[in-house]
Structures are given as structure tokens and as C-alpha cells.
């Protein structure tokens, strides 16, 4: 397997200095987030680490008495799946929304 090297100076998250040539052909995926509300124990890993800040803490309690996450910016999810991977309770997952391929990059 290839060595997973740290990001070099050319691949940082710095803003593009010009618009990529294929920007209008690349579709940013859109994910649909599903939350199994009653499994949540309110750790907030998903809310904290969502790179697009899609989630927020609900004001409601689930049956266990925890504040669970809610989708606040549905359009913003790019189906990266980080929330699903970080969730220690198997309570949140994303499904690629095939219909809404997403806007232009």
C-alpha cells in the first residue's frame, strides 16, 4: 500500500489561486444524513468535526436523556462520512444522494 505521506506545501487547504479547469465538470456529492436519535449519547463528536458544519445540537432530549445532533444545513453535506466514522454509538450515517448530485465545484 502507498505510504500515507503528510500533506506537502502544494496540497494544503489554501484557497485556489485560480479556478480549476475542470471545475464545471466535477460534481460535489451531496449526502443525506440519517440519525438514529435514540442511540445517541450526546458526545458531539459529529457536530464538532463535521467539516461543513452541517450539524447542530438539538434542544430536545432523546429517550436516554441526551441532546442529539440535528441537521441544520442539509444542502451543505458532501457525504464525506466523517460523522459516521467518528460516532461511537453507531447512531449517524450518510447516504449519497444520487438525485441531487450537488452544485458546481
Amino acid at each position, binding site marked *: *500500500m502507498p*505510504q*500515507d*505521506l*503528510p500533506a506537502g506545501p502544494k496540497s494544503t487547504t489554501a484557497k485556489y489561486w485560480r479556478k480549476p479547469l475542470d471545475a464545471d465538470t466535477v460534481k460535489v456529492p451531496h449526502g443525506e444524513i*440519517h*440519525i*438514529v*436519535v*435514540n*442511540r445517541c*449519547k*450526546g*458526545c*458531539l*463528536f459529529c457536530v*464538532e*468535526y463535521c467539516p461543513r458544519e452541517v450539524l447542530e445540537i438539538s434542544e430536545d432530549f432523546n*429517550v*436516554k436523556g*441526551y441532546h442529539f445532533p440535528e441537521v441544520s444545513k442539509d444542502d451543505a453535506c458532501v457525504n464525506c462520512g*466523517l460523522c*459516521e*466514522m*467518528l*460516532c*461511537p*454509538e*453507531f*447512531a449517524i*450515517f450518510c447516504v449519497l444522494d444520487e438525485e441531487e448530485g450537488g452544485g458546481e465545484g
Partner: protein
Amino acid sequence: MTKEATLEPELSHPMDDLLRMDRIPHIWCPTCGLGTVVTAFASAIEKLQLGLDDITVVSGIGCTGRVAGYVKIDSFHTTHGRAIPFATGLHLANPKLKTVVISGDGDLISIGGNHFIHAARRNVDLTVICVNNFIYAMTGGQVAPTTPLTANASTMPYGNFEQPFSIPYLADSCGAVYVARWSALHVRRLVTAIAEAIAKPGFSVVEVISPCSTLYSRRNRLGSGLDLMRFYHDNCEIKHGADTRELAIGFQEKITVGKFIDRDRPTFVESMNNWYGKVFGDEYEPYEGSVK
């Protein structure tokens, strides 16, 4: 609130097929990282496209020891410290199975320390996922062989004065062929590391730094598990191929993560077959398991 509502998941999660759903919710505390490690392990199996009947999990005792009970594959919850020798027997009787040991730092490095170093020396083809939360959590926060100096534990009530083990250094010096360390926050890297470790023939070790909110964090006034995740975010430094002598972890100090060792060495079974092949020639039938 009804009991049904508590137990019945409203939706089916993609992980459900890999979990013993009749045992969920698990026993781990809110903001514990163990659930995340289970997801990473399952994702690694998926990544490798391994059949669920080709892999088996052995755990010892402790919070991490409970992993074996939640994954829906052949799984063994053994005695304290003995996951590696149990897995050694399992693997040697059927070397075709991928045998993965998932256990904690206290289980593998303290009471099971002797087994760890010898399995590494012999290069038994096992994958060891050692979840390091720096403390004995299930028994109530006692000092572990990984507790950083000065950190508080219930049996080090004035702070730890014992030098801890650095797991990657230990694994490297004993001959492990693959050694990586990630935190529960580095979940994608962790999936890659676990997948690489499983695919690698020989004794491979993945240390996972994982938050324990109830004991380690509370005793040391470090906030919740989320605060520990934030700490990992700000203080983990990725350094692939780092010298394993420089991977010690100080209390609330920088944590070096990465893939440190990836080398090739014949496994126990390969060595045995190679040697007996030389000694006995064609008379020797290479060993492929004691199971018919």
C-alpha cells in the same frame, strides 16, 4: 418514554450487519472512543473486502476487552492478558483465518506484556489493535503501564511517578513487522492502518490513543472525551517513519502519530515450514493448520 422506544432503533445503520445488535447499546461511556475504534475496524474489513467468516477477534479483559462481544464475527472474550496467547493457538490451529486481537493497554502491555513481546519476537501472524486510554478504566482508574508521568490515577493519587511504556518502541524493539499509532480522531488514517496491519503477514501493532472521559479525563480534570479529541486535534503530530525511541507520551504533551514500522520478516509458520523443509526435504509436508 416506553421501553420499546429505548431499545428499538428507528433506522438501520450500515454498521448493524457487523454488530451484535441484540447487545447494543454497548456499555461504553458517553464520549468514549471505543465505539469509534469498532467502526474503524469494521471499515478496515470492508476496505480489505474480507469475508466475515475469514476473520476472528480475540479480546482480553477491560473496557476494550468488550469489543469481542459486539462484533458479529467469531469472537472470543478471554481472560485478562491472555488474548494474544489464545489468539496464537487459534491462529496456529488454523493459519488461514485472519486473527485480530483487540484489547487495552493494561491488558496487552501489563498483565499480557510477556505474551506481547514473545508473539512479536516469534512474528506470529496476528494483528494487535491496542486501544490506549492511559488508564485502567473498567476497574476504576488505576495507574496503567502507559499512564504518562505526573498524571493522576486512583492508585497514583498524587500523580504517577513511574516511567510508562511507549507501545510503538516496545513493539519495534521486539520485532513487530508493522507498527502504527493513531488517535481515535484520526479515524480515516486508523482505518488504513488497521487494513494494512491485517493484510500484513506477521505481528502487526496499531496503537489507538482513545479518550476515556469517565476515569482518565475526570481524574485529571481534562474535561470530556470531546475535550480530549480536541487535544488530539491540536497536539498530534503526524510523523511517518519516526524513530520509535522518540515516541514517548508525556502528560498533556505532543503525541507523535503515524506509521513507524513496515518491514518484512518470515512469520512463525513460514519459519517453521522453511526450516523443516530444509531439515526433512520432500518428506516434510508444509504445515497449514491442524484442522481437517
